[in-house]
């Protein structure tokens, strides 16, 4: 919504008395919401009634509330706007919890409105009553129980402010049914007085920025380690990162959440860092002398063994969340601020002081990096008989890269292979559940992405186990004519579980085989989608083309090698420079010690 429209809406609404339900709907419109994901029920019926009369809001009916939250995440991650969810009390709210935690872990802006039993019944164990604010308190950025309709305008506008500013996250608003019926004056976003003085710092301390730039300029072996914070800071942050990386001549790696912020086609791109990152990225992280962490949080999947994490480097950490700095890894220069703002100031400081990178040292550094690259850590053995999962993703990428493509994933081996083999040139193109690792994320997320980008190609790279966790959302895709492509790497195993059981638990494959799998082609057809299957390498390309060219949702059952392991890998409890490559795979079990076995 433009400022002009907002003013008009405000003028129209200034003195209007509305019901609580109408206030909810009007506030969403005034917040610029165009799409919300929900599922009706007894305790939200008044809001659904108000929605019936509001053509500006496109309500998408999911098939399970978890689907609503992931769809909202996909919508948010691909647009930069907050995702909005509307569910009923009790089971509606509890089903939404997984997606709420997912959004908290991955810093996704989201506003979740839940119905609640009428205020006079709260605490009486009423039908479909759950203590929603109690349940969601530890898994939201903030939450509210609205006791009076008068408070609704302020709370809703404040919720959007909190969800989208600082480190983004989910905010839950629990609204009892009697509050939805009660009448109160409406106030627009600019009229309300926020009860919480929430104003996170976005501009970095200039002295620390100067110190950081000085360190980068003197670096002999610098590296940029970037994360989801760059994506959350908006497209400008990605542009600034490209410019700064070019000026400093430093290599760039990224976390799973940050893929796309730096173009994969750039020669300075090292690939992903971490447990299943590239050999060159992990070794460069280990051996660097200056690490510039931008909007990442030194997660255990990235650092590996902490006491051996990049032992010789000075570390700069830019993060909008002060509690992320010095949490897992102690840094020399911590800068609290928004990545775009800090990068802008870093660039200005670099140019202002006329810094030049140490070209001689950089050339030695790049020589070392090229040696690591020569190990070709993502190499795999192709086969004439069976499709390799890596090959499936490589072909999917090759055949879709010239389109306007967005990728979501579920969680497991396929997710890591997608991160390794699909290449992203722009931010907001890659949606995955990083922190929480939620199987079932990808299909609903793809639905959210497709709604925000109706003409784009949206692919959910899935596994046959993960896809079954939210498979019911195929029905949503069909209802709204969303042509999402579900590309299932079907190896008949919970692949990552099987891999860990093979490497760490003496090949005791306890309950990790996906028995009694449905026929995914027939399943697709039953839902009204197109079903496709590829079983041999020579039919892969033709089938992928058929999927891409089909105007409608497709479920692609790609039968792949069953026992393929996802490599390279930093074994649990090991350091970045102790990575295991594919040719050394037999040794993984033996290199992980007792302490490592206990880690996740």
């Amino acid at each position, binding site marked *: 919504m433009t400022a002009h429209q907002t003013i008009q809406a405000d003028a129209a609404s200034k003195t209007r008395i509305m019901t609580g339900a109408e206030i909810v709907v009007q506030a969403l419109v005034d917040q610029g919401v165009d799409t919300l994901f929900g599922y009706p029920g007894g305790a939200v019926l008044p809001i659904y009634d108000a929605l019936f009369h509001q053509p500006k809001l496109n309500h998408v009916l999911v098939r399970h509330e978890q689907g609503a939250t992931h769809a909202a995440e996909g919508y948010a991650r691909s647009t930069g706007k907050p995702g909005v969810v509307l569910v009923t009390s009790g089971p509606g709210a509890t089903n939404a919890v997984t997606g709420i935690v997912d959004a908290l872990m991955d810093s996704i802006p989201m506003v979740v409105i839940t119905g609640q039993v009428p205020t006079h019944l709260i605490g009486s164990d009423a039908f479909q009553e759950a203590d929603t*604010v*109690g349940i969601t*308190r*530890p898994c939201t*950025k*903030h939450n509210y*129980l609205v006791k009076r309709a008068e408070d609704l305008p302020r709370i809703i506008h404040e919720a959007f402010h*909190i969800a989208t500013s600082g480190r983004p996250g989910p905010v839950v608003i629990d609204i009892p049914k009697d509050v939805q019926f009660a009448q109160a004056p409406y106030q627009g976003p600019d009229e309300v007085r926020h*009860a*919480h*003085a*929430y104003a996170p710092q976005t501009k970095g301390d200039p002295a620390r920025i100067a110190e950081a730039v000085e360190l980068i300029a003197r670096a002999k072996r610098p590296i940029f380690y970037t994360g989801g914070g760059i994506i959350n800071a908006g497209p400008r942050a990605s542009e600034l990162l490209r410019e700064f990386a070019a000026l400093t001549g430093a290599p760039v790696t990224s976390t799973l959440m940050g893929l796309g912020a730096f173009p994969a086609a750039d020669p300075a791109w090292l690939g992903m860092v971490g447990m299943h990152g590239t050999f060159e990225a992990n070794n460069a992280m280990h051996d660097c002398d200056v690490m510039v962490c931008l909007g990442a949080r030194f997660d*255990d999947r990235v*650092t*590996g*063994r*902490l*006491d051996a994490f990049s032992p010789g480097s000075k570390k700069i950490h830019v993060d909008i*969340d*002060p*509690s992320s*700095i*010095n*949490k*897992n890894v*102690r840094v020399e220069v911590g800068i609290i601020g928004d990545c775009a703002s800090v990068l802008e100031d870093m660039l200005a400081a670099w140019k202002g002081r006329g810094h030049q990178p140490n070209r001689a040292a950089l050339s030695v550094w790049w020589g070392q990096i090229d040696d690591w690259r020569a190990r070709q850590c993502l190499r795999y053995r192709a086969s004439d008989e069976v499709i390799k999962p890596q090959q499936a993703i490589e072909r999917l990428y090759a055949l879709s890269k010239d389109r306007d493509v967005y990728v979501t994933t579920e969680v497991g081996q396929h997710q890591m292979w997608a991160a390794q083999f699909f290449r992203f040139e722009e931010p907001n193109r890659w949606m995955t559940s990083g922190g929480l690792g939620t199987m079932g994320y990808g299909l609903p997320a793809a639905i959210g992405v497709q709604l925000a980008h109706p003409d784009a190609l949206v692919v959910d790279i899935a596994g046959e186990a993960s896809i079954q966790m939210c498979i019911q959302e195929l029905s949503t895709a069909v209802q709204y004519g969303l042509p999402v492509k579900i590309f299932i790497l079907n190896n008949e195993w919970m692949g990552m579980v099987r891999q860990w059981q093979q490497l760490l638990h003496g090949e005791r494959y306890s309950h990790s085989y996906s028995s009694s799998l449905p026929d995914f082609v027939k399943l697709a057809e039953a839902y009204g989608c197109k079903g496709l299957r590829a079983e041999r390498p020579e039919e892969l390309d033709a089938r992928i083309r058929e999927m891409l060219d089909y105007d409608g949702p497709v479920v692609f059952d790609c039968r792949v090698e069953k026992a393929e392991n996802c490599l390279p890998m930093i074994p649990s*409890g090991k350091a970045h420079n102790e990575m295991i490559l594919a040719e050394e795979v037999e040794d993984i079990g033996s290199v992980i010690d007792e*302490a490592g076995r*206990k*880690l*996740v």
Partner: protein
Amino acid sequence: MPTDQPGSAYDLSHADQTEHRATYAVIVDNEPGVLHRVVGLFSARGYNIESLTVAETDERLHASRITVVTSGTTEILAQIRAQLEKMVCVRDVHDVGRDPLGVERELALVKVRGAGADRVEALRVAEIFRAKVIDTTLESFIFEVSGAPSKIDKFVDLMEPLGLVEVARTGVLSIGRGAERHVKGL
């Protein structure tokens, strides 16, 4: 190597593992659930709570003051503070324990049962500690004693052999000395 490092599956073996005690005054918006948020943060992240007191201190500004005594390594204490400050409902966190101008006080009610010499001795010790007798029967006293937590500890220790029955303590309250306000958000 210790493996109880919060915030990570791995351990910070290079870190200083000496535990320190800290007292924070946390100024929060006075709204339902705010105490649960603060307590929940401590339990979810595995931090210690040695004592915690809370009450509304400024009705007009809807502010409450939570005084929490905790312990941890320097890194953990910094994390606790940062995690508290990050909460939407938290206006300010003041490290009153580390503040050289900070004073800490606690109030205790101590019930002692006894007769004869023990009873006389209990009353004598109470006088030394400037404890007030707020209830008495022929065989018992309830003392009200206030002061630094260590003083209360000492008083309770001394009452132990004299017939200590029961102790109720408020937990620590803390404030900075002098004319200035030391916390923001009020």
